[in-house]
């Protein structure tokens, strides 16, 4: 799946929603402006990734981590993002931890109460499990 960076964009619906919520009620956005913001967002990710990667390399690490991204924000003169990002990261870590513990419990129970539980929560479980297996703490970004 060789995609050029310019071809990768973020979902219009989500971008539009974020824009609308940032602006006062009654304000609209032209299609061209929305499309340009969407492209800007992709460029932002690419630039931030590159910046973050420099920090990872400085630390002699091959894996980009959250603090590299935070350092990149400061480097890019978006210091005001750092505090809210840290809060989000905390919430994310709590949620991930909750998921893991919930799964541990489910696994224990599944052993003793196989049929009922697993059928009921089949969807959630399977999807979550797929997600967990796909994304562990260190994710392989193949290049």
């Amino acid at each position, binding site marked *: 799946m060789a995609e050029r*960076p310019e071809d990768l964009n973020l979902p219009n619906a*989500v971008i539009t929603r*974020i824009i609308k919520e940032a*602006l006062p009620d009654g304000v609209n*956005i*032209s299609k061209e402006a929305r499309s340009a913001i969407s492209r800007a967002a992709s460029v932002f*990710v690419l630039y931030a990734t590159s910046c973050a990667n420099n920090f990872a390399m400085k630390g002699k690490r091959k*894996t980009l981590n959250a603090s590299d*991204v935070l350092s990149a924000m400061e480097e890019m003169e978006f210091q005001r993002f750092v505090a809210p990002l840290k809060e989000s990261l905390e919430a994310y870590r709590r949620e991930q931890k909750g998921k893991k513990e919930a799964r541990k419990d489910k696994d224990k129970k599944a052993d003793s109460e196989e049929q009922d539980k697993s059928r009921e929560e089949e969807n959630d479980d399977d999807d979550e499990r797929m997600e967990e297996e796909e994304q562990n703490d260190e994710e392989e970004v193949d290049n």
Partner: protein
Amino acid sequence: MAAAVAGAVPVPVPVPVSVPGAEAAGPGEEAAGAGPPGPARLARLPLARVKALVKADPDVSLASQEAVFVLARATELFVETIAKDAYVYAQQGKRKTLQRKDLDNAIEAIDEFAFLEGTLD
């Protein structure tokens, strides 16, 4: 007290398909849904799409899940910021519709957006 803007052109938005727990990197709009407001919200942008952008960098070998998440959130903050900054120019032009030129003005005027120059065309 929602102001009805006469003649407003609604932006056509495809119906988002919400698939619980799906991390499919396929095409289509993945709506992460409206979560709790405020900085501690989880990401709205689908992490898979952000991850695809990260992978596009040939110098990057591995990225942690947390890194992708923080990037997604940072991008959301960026979108909010640039929309608000561009809107200032629309207000100056006494318009209630944000236009491409407002964005261009913001990019030219604001140092933090210098990295965008020449990339949006």
